[in-house]
């Protein structure tokens, strides 16, 4: 990647400024980062053990992220994807390979502060080598209009003894339309930890599909979806976990708080194909728990403040 131009630096600065408190991350030579505005890389810095190649597409980028064997990236790698204009399409195609025994924690921020009609698509394939750990935290920051369509689709292979942890968070701003689709295959003694935390407001439409396949002996997975819906927002959550190897263990947890005219639907699917495997699930949809509410109100919080705090906990 070539050095960014002055105009690109300015765009990167504006993009990061839209992240608010989350935008001050790129200081320091030991912190890797990549900023993409539309289909343009406007800022980047790499550290030893981490390689990133980017091709420009018509309406986005295609990136190859590679972690060398045994590389331990000490500080979180920061990615920032976004668009400042009110309209447009950003398509991110990402190929990630974490080689054996490597480690990286990636913090991705997706920002669309002015969106009225923006589509953000992510197609990712991730392979995590034996004994490696790859963490991917994706936080979305949207504007007040909710004019964003977010379509993240990711396929992951977690090799023997490897660990994949991922979080998807959209708490600030209007969600718009979210169609989240993650599917993960887990080899022997690997670990999968996946959580989506979303607040839906207005006319937001949210669809979550989290799927994990525990294919190898002793593989473990936890799939969690925690949503709070207000106004006329709707959500459908499909959590699927299959276990087909001895001592595979998994748990599915879906919790949704529904207020106003919001509508929520949860479909947990657990499938066990081996007598020594074990998978559990729980799903709870409803209004804010009255005892929690009354407890906080008996400390002096009004109903809205108490509700916000309960939701903060659930999504925190």
């Amino acid at each position, binding site marked *: 990647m070539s050095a960014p131009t002055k105009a690109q630096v300015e765009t990167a600065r504006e993009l990061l400024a839209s992240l608010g408190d989350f935008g001050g991350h790129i200081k320091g030579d030991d912190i890797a980062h990549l900023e993409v505005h539309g289909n343009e890389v406007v800022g980047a810095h790499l550290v030893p053990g981490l390689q990133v190649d980017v091709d420009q597409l018509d309406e986005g980028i295609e990136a190859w992220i590679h972690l060398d064997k045994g590389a331990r990236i000490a500080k979180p790698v920061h990615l920032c994807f976004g668009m400042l204009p009110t309209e447009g399409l950003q398509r991110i195609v990402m190929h990630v390979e974490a080689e054996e025994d490597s480690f990286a924690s990636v913090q991705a921020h997706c920002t669309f502060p002015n969106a009225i009609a923006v589509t953000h698509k992510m197609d990712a394939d991730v392979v995590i080598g034996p004994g490696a750990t790859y963490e991917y935290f994706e936080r979305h920051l949207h504007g007040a209009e909710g004019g964003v369509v977010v379509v993240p689709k990711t396929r992951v292979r977690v090799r023997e003894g490897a660990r994949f942890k991922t979080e998807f968070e959209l708490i600030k701003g209007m969600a718009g339309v979210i169609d989240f689709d993650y599917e993960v295959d887990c080899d022997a003694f690997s670990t999968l930890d996946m959580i989506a935390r979303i607040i839906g407001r207005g006319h937001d439409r949210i669809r979550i599909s989290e799927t994990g396949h525990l294919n190898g002996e002793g593989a473990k997975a936890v799939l969690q979806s925690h949503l709070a819906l207000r106004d006329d927002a709707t959500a459908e959550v499909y959590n699927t976990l299959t276990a087909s190897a001895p001592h595979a263990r998994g748990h599915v947890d879906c919790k949704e708080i529904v207020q106003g005219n919001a509508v929520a639907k949860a479909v947990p699917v657990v499938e066990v194909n081996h007598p020594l495997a074990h998978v559990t699930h729980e799903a709870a949809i409803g209004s804010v728990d009255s005892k929690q509410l*009354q*407890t906080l109100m*008996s*400390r*002096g919080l*009004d109903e809205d403040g108490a509700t916000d705090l309960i939701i*903060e*906990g*659930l*999504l925190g």
Partner: protein
Amino acid sequence: MGVLELRDVTLELGGRRILNGLTVDFWEGHVHALIGPNGAGKSTLAGAIMGLPDYRHMRGEILLDGEPIQDLPVDERARRGITLAWQEPARFEGLRVDRFILAGAKERTGATVRRVLERVGLDPEKYAARAVDKTLSGGERKRIELASILAMEPRVVLMDEPDSGIDVEALTRIFDALADFKERGATVILITHSQEVLKHAEHAFLLCDGRIIDKGNVGRIDGYFGDKCISCGHTNLPTVEELAGVAE
């Protein structure tokens, strides 16, 4: 005149009269105990004073500093200084202990969190960032709830069965918190069956069938409760003779 006065408070739930024309004063800075058999109306009374939604349709008056509060919602009563420690504290998935404590705290600082956690015998380093959820034992949640109330610095504290489901260490810490409330001049109303808890009260009220049937010295009231109420076959309703025998 008490800091908190109830005048002819009556409450029916599910067609049954739970509080029955109850009149009582609670004195500023004193520790009171409400004792009585199961179903006598003790927890209902606490809920009515706090203004919990299930108990808002009561009749009669509740006065704080002489001003009626029976029409105020829970949060407004709390802002005026009344609060409730629940028999079974709520669990809050994901909500950190420090956030919970500071939610109603008078001074919202890290120093407050540390002070109140230490007061209830919990190490702030270990507990402040934990969630108030099922990973905590019942005793830990009770102590954290009391820590949150200490941070609030209330004027009237209702404590519903403070000793239920906890170990000796936790109970000791709860008594420490009780001492703190008293030192700060708060009015405490203990709802209890426990003689251990009763030792910390200065006045006792015997509640039966939604009425106060006796009040005064803790030892005497507890003695009556032990002698008469526990073996009472009158489904929480004393006989006329019994009532006559205890009336002041």
